[in-house]
Structure formats: structure tokens, C-alpha cells
């Protein structure tokens, strides 16, 4: 990833020209051949762009479990094969050396991350959820409501109601999840009793 795009263009341009001399083809033809080779024998998968909300179609080419190329889906009625600079960069998200590939943990007061195992991280999070929930769970809470008085008027009165909620945990996110994930995420958070649930739509 230390190669900048400009370096890359210089390099690949140079290679194409060198190749062209040897094979007797123009740089354009060489570039076209390059493209063909890259996706030859690759599997095509249809996806939708993960960036803005236009919902452009993208075709992802994979070979040996790796994404080798992605491009606009020419059959898509909205985008008709076109993509913006973000959509066109999709494949750089995938095999990106700065991606997180292992869970990390930061202890209280620590100055650095520590890589940890999934099992440990999930168990520890589950324990903290239960511990916080059990200690901060609110079965009842006071609310002000309007109550009809015998003379027909209404008066604000404070009453205790059942609320069954967990006030000690909050959640934000996530507008980049799939619908199915959003649905089970809110379903589970609410089963835990959370009411402080917010995400990108608010900001």
C-alpha cells in the first residue's frame, strides 16, 4: 500500500510501453489485454455499492478466494455500469493491509492494543453486558402524566410505571449494515432492555 496511484500509473504505464515494444501492440491494446487476463476465469458476483445511497450495481470478480477486480454492473438500471471514484475503489477496501483482521483489547489505563482471541473477547463482552445490565436494570420508573380530576380538569401527576429497561448501556450505529443485520441488532439490543439506541440517521 506504500505505492501511490501516481507511482502505480508511472510503473504500469512503463511496463505497458515496454511490453508493447516486444509484442508489437499499442499501449492501449496491452492495457486491454491486462484487463482481460486479470478477470479471466474469475467468478462474477453482483453487489451494491457500500458508500452513498444511490445504490449503484457493482460486479466483483474473484479468483482463488480473492477479489481481483470490481467494476460497474452494466445491467443495473440506475448506474448503468458507471461508478464514482468511491464506488470504483471498492476493491481497495477488501485486501487492505490496514484492515483489522483480529480482535483487539485495550485494558484500563493501557497505552497499547493487545490482539486477542475471538472466544475470549466475545465471552468477556457477554459477561460485561450481563454484569452492567443486572446492576443497572430499572424495573420501574417515575413519569409525569396528565390525570383527569373529579371536576373534569387535568392535572400533572407523577406516577411509577413498569419500564423494564437497561439504562447503563447505550448503542450507536449502523447505517452500513445490511437490513437483516439492522433488524436483529435492534431486536437483540431491545431484548437486553436498551432504549439509548441511535445511529447515523440522527446526525
Amino acid at each position, binding site marked *: 500500500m506504500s505505492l501511490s496511484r501516481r507511482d502505480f500509473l508511472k510503473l504500469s504505464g512503463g511496463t505497458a510501453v515496454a511490453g508493447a515494444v516486444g509484442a508489437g501492440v499499442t499501449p492501449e491494446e496491452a492495457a486491454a489485454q491486462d484487463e482481460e487476463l486479470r478477470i479471466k476465469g474469475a467468478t462474477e458476483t453482483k453487489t451494491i455499492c457500500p458508500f*452513498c445511497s444511490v445504490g449503484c450495481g457493482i460486479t466483483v470478480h474473484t479468483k482463488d478466494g480473492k477479489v481481483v477486480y470490481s467494476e460497474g454492473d452494466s445491467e443495473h438500471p*440506475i448506474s448503468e455500469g458507471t461508478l464514482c471514484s468511491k464506488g470504483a475503489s471498492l476493491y481497495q477496501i477488501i485486501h487492505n493491509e490496514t484492515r483489522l483482521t483480529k480482535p483487539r483489547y485495550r485494558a484500563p489505563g493501557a497505552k497499547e492494543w493487545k490482539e486477542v482471541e475471538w472466544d475470549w473477547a466475545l465471552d468477556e463482552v457477554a459477561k460485561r453486558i450481563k454484569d452492567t445490565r443486572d446492576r443497572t436494570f430499572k424495573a420501574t420508573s417515575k413519569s409525569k402524566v396528565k390525570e383527569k380530576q373529579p371536576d373534569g380538569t387535568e392535572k400533572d401527576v407523577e406516577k411509577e410505571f413498569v419500564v423494564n429497561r437497561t439504562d447503563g448501556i447505550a448503542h450507536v450505529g449502523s447505517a452500513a449494515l445490511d437490513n437483516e443485520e439492522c433488524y436483529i441488532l*435492534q431486536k437483540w439490543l431491545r431484548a437486553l432492555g436498551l432504549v439509548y439506541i441511535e445511529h447515523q440517521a440522527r446526525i
Partner: protein
Amino acid sequence: MTNHWIDLKNADVVLVMGGNPAENHPISMKWIIKAKEQGAKLIVVDPRFTRTAAKADIYAAIRSGTDIAFLGGMIKYILDNNLYHRGYVANYTNASFLVNPEFKGPGQLNGLFSGYDPKTRKYDKKTWSFQMDENGVPKKDLTLKDPNCVFQLLRKHYSRYTIDTVSSITGTPEEKLIEIYKMYGSTGRPDRAGTECYAMGWTQHTVGTQNIRAMAIIQLLLGNVGMAGGGVNALRGESNVQGSTDHGLLFHILPGYLPVPSASLVDLNAYIEKYTPKAKDPRSVNWWSNRGKYITSYLKAIFGKSATKENDFGYAWHPKLDEGMNASWLNLFDQMYNGKFEGFFAWGQNPACSGSNAGKVRKSLGKLKWMVNVNLFDNETGSFWRGPGVNSADIQTEVFMLPCASSVEKEGSITNSGRWAQWRYKAIEPIGQSKADAEIIDELQTRVRKLYQTAGGKFPAPIVNLTWNYKTAVKQIDTHEIAKEINGYYLEDVFDTKATPPKQLGKKGQLCASFVHLQADGTTSSGNWLYSQSYTQKEGKVINMMARRGKADPTGLGMFPEWSWAWPVNRRIIYNRASVDLNGSPWNPKRPVITWDPVKLDKNTQKPGVWVGDVPDGPAPPMGTDGKGKYPFIMRADGMGSIFGPGLADGPFPEHYEALECPLQENLLSKQRINPAVKLFYGKEGSKEEDIFLSCDMRYPYVASTYRVTEHWQTGVLSRHLPWLLETVPQLFVEMSEELGAEKGIKNGDKVVVKSARGQVVAKAVVTKRLKPFKVAGSTVHQVGLPYHFGWQFPEDGSGGDSANLLTPTIGDANTMIPETKAFMVSVEKG
């Protein structure tokens, strides 16, 4: 969006105001250009000459935060010049309704509506009501002449928004205002359509909701709602922010816009009673009268067999808000600052950069005991404990950072701005040890459930009774099974008991055909009624409607009804019953959305009379049909488009107020400088210094706004790491006019410091012709703009700079509490 992306091509006039599609929704611009090629005109109103503006027929600059003044002037112009669509306004909107004679507006009460209580900063809306006849139906004057009718009150309210006043507030020259009003007003002709595109440029203001209301009023006056090439179109910012909202990831709504229950609604009956609007007028469809079916089917979806009639379908297991409790973003972080929360999930979101007043957010994170951060990349939120100015040893928060898979490493659907739910397939396995979000949720759910099952604990019922049937022979969690739960099932054989003999609607165990079949007695389930029909069964065959790739376009309007699936029930343009006259003939015969065919036989009833075109807003015959016709706005209890909006917190008509921080001492229209109904975080006892704001203060003389660029996305977590994108736009910059640059001795490329009352950032100066000084109230006002895509954590050498949200204030819209990040005050100095 009321309409959808391709439909932009059907417009005669496109107004882009509060958005910038060429840069933030680039591919959508294709359809705006297509409209232009067909003769449409493009109007762009923006503080900055954007790349969308570069394609405009008319561009006008506007000072940030003055859109209601601009649009109020347009309403006045439309009324004064009789440009409105009279038949539409009289029959399809509440313009004819008579309002309580006690109602008073800001013209009479110096900026306030009747019923204001300065102590609570809230309105008693008693007088914002309609006069009712003996049957409980609003009284009407279809001639629109009664002085108390909505139409006349509207005229009176906006009579104050004269061209010179509007120009003086907005900084837009008078001749530009007139040119735009005239052009957009031309779509009031029944056979012309105008569309409006907005994004966060309208929502992120203390008057955000009313910005959009003002446009909705204009669209109703011009008869543009329901039309091809019309509507009010929110260009949403994220790939699935439409879907995540539809599925209730917000404190106040459950999936399908069902309100979250509150404390005093002690049982399901009380909930249904409160949230089921009553309509006494038989011509009103009043769709929300189905509320009971939707909430019951939801409870059946989440609690399954454990939800019974006897236990109120598990209603008591659901958490309740206190009455009047607002758990939205700004309050959430205020409470976090107060130490209310021990635990916090930041799941696919980076509030340390995206939250308004990000400095306060970052401090708040340090008050937590533990945090779970799920993301593809490290980010400023997960690593807040090692951020600038933070001594790690002082921060006691434990952080778990869980790596998730990218969108091509899993399978599921996302919903675009045009409400199309489109299926994405899995191309490869998750990279490294990363897991799909669904798997992470599944793992945590399973482990927490086990702890409660084995060790007990507080109120385990909702946790142990939660349905979780997503495991298949091959997958630990299969998103297809979730999609089916969202769509819903017939839990028993379900019959239409109104028919004689009763007609079978569905067979036990099958997927529901659509929400029309959902029941309130527990015999159906649906995780989100709005998505019922998205994953269904036809003649026994299971069909994932969202995965469809049919390219038929029978109307020629670009609706592509066989491509993916749109909510609700695959309707591509909502409120489409308003696109026809009282007899069901399209207002615009050139671009008919739906048409009533009185002769053709209805497939289901075998009786003559059927709609052709888009899926209509209900099968009822057109409004003018004797006895059977229905009003067009089926989601409103009264069936009418709301020109008068009594449900809003800050007034039934939009009124101009200045931003919390603005360059003016006074509002030129009234004595109320800011929206009187917003919640103030600062300036009272117990205020936090972090929430400080300074308006009309010489130290912060310039209006500022945040925005985005094509090459980055939101706080940049998914774009700063991509080499191509980072190279093209590598760091924070601040755009300013050549005039301001000259005044401050700042040249293009200089390092500058931008400060607000709350924080500061270092940025590169971009001195440009795209911004020009405004003439506001006779004085010169400068405006600057900054993108908010950057953060200290990456690039790791700090070369990107930090978040522009370190500058933005703690204040939200009066209705939605969306923070005001599009208008605030700053200083700019050479650094």
C-alpha cells in the same frame, strides 16, 4: 425519497437546495442531466458554487441557515401570482380546512405561535387545531376564502416574506430570487412537474424539519407530490441509512415506524389505542388504523410462541421510555458525559469524528467502563484513549475492538434512497479473522442468552424468549432466514372473514403475501410490516423479491418494477393517487404514474374498474367516485396533504429563525432570534463549558458549514484507508472567498487555524471563487466551509488533520434533535 433516483429524469424543473448530488451522490446526477437533455431546467441554491451548481441553469448563493426565508418568499410569490394548482390544493390538501379562530401566528405574536411557554420552551398546541363539524370531520371551505381557512392563514403568514426582506436575510440578490421563484412556480401547471433534492444541507439545522416542511408546502401548492418527476426527495447519506431507519435503529421507533412504547402505555391495548388515529370521514383510508396488526405481528416475530394473547404478546418484556423522555444522539452523549452509562457499543460508526461537538464526545467516551467498537478499520472512537491531548494512563475505559467483514464478504439486502431493497451476494469469505456483523451479533446473543439460562439474572424473560431461528444445516446464521422473519409468516390458516364465504388468505407456515394480510390476533408474524412482500411465496414458491433483476419498464418512466423491490408493496412513487384528477385521469397525460381504467376487469373481484401503471396507493377507485372514492394521502388520518402541520413542535407553518450561532444581533423578521422550541444545552444553571456557544461575537465573525467531497465518505473510516481516495483528497481544507483571503492575507495552500467557541482545527486554505461574500442586512458577511472526513488516527502521521466536528455546536432541531452542523460561527487565522 417520495420518488426514486431514475425518476429525476421525468422532472421539468429540478431544484437542488440543501444537497449536492454531483459530489455526494455522483451517479444520480446522470438522471438530472438526462432531464436537462429533455428540456428540464436545473436550479441550484447553495452557499457555495458546487459541482452541481456548475451544471445549473440558475445558481443562487444563500447564507447558511436561511432556507425558510428563501422558501417562504417562494410561497408568497406562488400565492401572489396565482401559480398554484388550484384543483390539487383544494381537493388533496388541508388548505380548505378551517382552523381554530384562537390560533395566532408569528406576525401577530412577534415571532411566536399561540400557546408558547417560555419556561419550558414548548408550545401548548390547543389552538393549532381544526374546527370540526357535528360528525367530527374538519370543516372546509372549498372556495379557500374563509379568513380562518388554512389557505388564507398561509397567505397571511408569508405576506411578511417580501422579496427585499428575504434578500436581506439570505444574502441572495432580489433578481435571483424572482428568477428562481418564477421558474420553479412554473411547475404549478398540472402538466408540469418540479422535483426537489435535499440532503444534510437541510436537516442539520435547528429548523431542519421546518426547512423540509416549507418545501413540502410548495410541492403541495404546485401539485408536485405523487407525480412522476415530482416529490420531496431526501438524498440519504449512507448505503443503507434508509434501511437502518426503516428497521428502527433509533430510540423512538421500532421497525416500520411503530413508536417505541412509553411508560404510561401499560398494556398492548393502551399502546394500540394511543397510536391508532381515528378518522370519522368514510372517504379517508387512514392507513395507520392498521397499527394493531403491525405491532402484534412484530411482537409475534420477536417473541414467537412465547408471545400469547394471555401474556399480551410479550408487550411487558419490551423496554419502555419514560413519558417525554428523549434518548436521541445529543442527549445520549450528554448523559454519557454525566457518567450515566457503563457500557457502550459504537457499531460501524465513528462518533468521535461524526458527532457534533466532537471534543465533548471524545471526553464522554472516557467516562465509560467498557466499550465495544465494531469496524473494518481502527478509528478515532475505538482509539480515543490514545488521541491528541489524552493521557492513556488516565483513561480507565476497557475497549473491545471487533473486526467485521466488508459488504462483499457477506450476504443480505440494503435499501437505497429511492426505497429499493437490493440484494447483495457474498463474493469471498471474510478477510483474516473478521466476521460478518450478523455473526458477531449472533455470537454475542448466544453467549448472553446462555449466561442468563445458566446463571439467571435480572428479568431474563425477553432475553430467553427472543426468537433466534437463523441457524440452518450449513450456516450458523443465515440472512435469508432473517429476511423471511422480517417479511412475516402466516402462523395459522388465515381467512378474510369479511368475504362470504370467508376467503383463505394464507396457509399456516407460509410466508405472508404482503402486509395487507397481517392480523392483530397473533395469527401472523412480521418483523417489519413495511417490508412484508419483500421475501414472499407465490403459489407455494419462495421468492426473494429483493434479488430480482428484471429489466422491464412498462410505463417508460424508469420505474423498473421487476428490478429488486421497493417498499411499500413495490410502489415506486408514493402518494401516487395525487397524480390523477378526481376521475382518475393523470394530471400530466404525458407522464402518467397511474390511470383509472373504468372498464377493465379487476383480477381479484372480476368487477370493472382498475388502476394501471405503478402500484397505486390502495385499490379504491378515484376520489370523485360516488360513495367509494378515497382521499389520496392515505397515511394521514384526514387523507389530505398537510399544508398546516399541527403536529410539529415549533409551529404549524415554517417560520424563519436564525441559527444558534449567527452573524446577526437580531432576526430581521421578529424578536425571536433562534427557534424558540429548541432544547438549549448551555446558558442555564449546571451548563457544561463544553456546550458553549457564541453568537454575533467579534471573535468568531464568519459563518461556517461542514460538507463532503466525492472522494471521501462520512468520517473517512472507509475512505481514508483507500490509497486512491486518500491521494486525491489527502487532508482537511477550508474553503473561503478570494475577498476573505485578501482581507486575512491568506493565500491558496496556506496553513490556517479555524476556531469556534468549542474547538479548533488546522487546515489548508482553499481560496476560491466558489464562495462570495454575502450582503446581509446591509453588511458584508463571509462564509467558509470544511469537509468533515478527517481524523487524527489515520493517516497515522497525522497529515490528514482532524475532524471539522470539533468546531460544531451542541444543539439540535426542535423536532428531530439532528445537530446543527450546517451553520455555526468561526474565526480563520493564518497558522
